[in-house]
């Protein structure tokens, strides 16, 4: 009897390990972040119910308010720039690579190499290359006669964030190129041929055939980029420290959250503010969730069939 029942309901046993793992170590922590944000905390001990007090603190009270909006604007700039680079340069390269000329495979492979590096290595590598006195980058500028451009790229508020964004793009770009290329390869060749036979120019074919068909992949890539850029942490932590030096000019939501949650406990400073940190995490969750849901909706609405 029991055996029969078990064979009939085998799917329950198949599902169980995965559900437990995913439920306990992913869904539960994410869901309780919300709960955590609604309480006062004294170190690691939960205090009285706080309502939306923690959110109010983050959004309206100093010093959190200035830090939060500052970090948010940096994240937005981070995403917008990365998006702009990948959908112009990245997309153009993918379209070009589709032609499969001699040597393109080689270039593809090469562009993707930085993506295999860990963020920690990327951060340290560029930290040394951009070192104001000894770094190879400034020495290179001097070598090619651009000595007047030499500056402490990571040390001044005007250039630090842009430098971080470009270093991130350097590591990242190979990935969207490959994703776009994979998407392009999924578009039937006949459609391009038909457009050419109909007398469309290269640009027209791209604009009216390739682009609409590739839109889902571009959209998906944009959402993924958004999620990753709103999660960015390592690069700034490694290169500029947990407070986004200089003067918080490279501070991101990720570093702000880290500082608030775990304090400077690693360097013997203040302990973390769990309630406020959870409020920051929930706000990030809301931003990421809203953008991805809206993005996916938009894409489904515009889905083109072929």
């Amino acid at each position, binding site marked *: 009897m029991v055996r029969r029942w078990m064979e009939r309901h085998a799917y329950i046993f198949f599902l169980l390990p995965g559900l437990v793992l995913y439920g306990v170590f992913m869904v539960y922590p994410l869901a309780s972040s919300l709960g955590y944000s609604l309480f006062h905390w004294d170190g690691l001990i939960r205090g009285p119910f706080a309502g939306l007090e923690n959110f109010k603190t983050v959004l309206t009270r100093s010093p959190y308010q200035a830090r939060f909006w500052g970090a948010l604007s940096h994240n937005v700039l981070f995403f917008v720039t990365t998006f702009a680079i990948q959908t112009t340069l990245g997309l153009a390269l993918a379209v070009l690579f589709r032609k499969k000329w001699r040597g393109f495979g080689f270039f593809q492979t090469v562009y993707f190499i930085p993506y295999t590096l860990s963020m920690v290595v990327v951060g340290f590598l560029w930290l040394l290359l951009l070192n104001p006195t000894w770094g190879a980058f400034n020495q290179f500028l001097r070598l090619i006669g651009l000595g007047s451009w030499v500056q402490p790229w990571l040390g001044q508020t005007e250039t630090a964030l842009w430098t971080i964004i470009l270093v991130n793009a350097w590591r990242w770009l190979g990935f969207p190129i*490959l994703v776009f290329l994979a998407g392009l390869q999924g578009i039937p060749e006949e459609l391009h041929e038909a457009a050419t036979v109909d007398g469309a120019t290269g640009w027209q074919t791209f604009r009216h055939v390739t682009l609409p068909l590739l839109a889902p992949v571009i959209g998906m890539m944009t959402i993924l980029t958004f999620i990753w850029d709103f999660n960015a942490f390592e690069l700034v932590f490694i290169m500029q420290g947990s407070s986004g030096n200089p003067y918080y000019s490279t501070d991101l939501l990720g570093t702000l959250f880290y500082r608030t949650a775990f304090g400077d406990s690693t360097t013997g400073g203040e302990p973390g503010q769990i309630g406020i940190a959870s409020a920051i995490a929930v706000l990030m969750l809301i931003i990421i969730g809203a953008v991805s849901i809206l993005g996916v909706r938009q894409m489904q609405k515009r889905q083109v069939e072929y």
Partner: protein
Amino acid sequence: MATRLDLAAERKATVAPRRWRAAVGKVLIYGGLTLLALIFVYPLFLMVITAFKSTREIFLDPFGLPSRWSLEPFITVWRRANFSTYFRNSVLVTAASTVLVLTCSSLAAYALGRYRFRLNNALYIFFLAGIMIPIRLGVLPLFLLMRNLNLLDTHWSLILTYAASGMPMSVFLLTGFFRTLPRELEYAARIDGCSEFQTFFRVMLPLVRPGLATVTIVNFVPWWNDFFFPLLFIQSDELKTIPLGMTIFFGQYMTDWGLLFAGMLIASLPLLLLYLVMSRQFIEGLTAGAVKG
């Protein structure tokens, strides 16, 4: 006669500039691609040659080739800076997480892809919802959970976190693979007397091997490179993984640039080699999630 000649001449006149223009275009394209390739690779090339140089040489001649190719800095890093331990830990954690996620996700995906039951669709969406949500945002409760389970400062804290965060994408990809298998295989297995589990393990699982490879690659790369969770969960030096170990190493040897570059090179080499050897599978695996999503 005359008209025909005219036509031929005309064709020659238009074809020639077009060819010439195409040639210039090609040169520009290859030139641009080469320049970009240099931007992507030259910093890495510098990393390699700098690893072999003495500090004095690095500062006096940053772009020249090293005066001698000695493996000494690498041996120093490997032995003195605990890199062998970090390396072993990274292998251990990544491998265990992979085994765990492959087991759990293939079982769950099999249930979702092959069985009809009331909650099937709801559970599928429940798993999928996690694709868009980064587990990092739940790190505070996760931290306290690990503390209460006495798992902080153990490899288990990392393995469980990684495997759980890998579930959504893995279940999504594998369910897709399982759904493509023909029903007849299942029937045949049952007629031959296989139990449900045997049908899964002996017949169906081997057929989704490409899917298992994809899932492995999708997860393997971010786990191997992860810095965030080790930073928060691991205290003991002998348990640290490479990315976290790197930061320790950087603090210790800040003035010895040759060693720092050697350390970075050692840290990057495994994935780099793996990528260069099997770039096709790598690329297919890493893009699978984004394209199929």
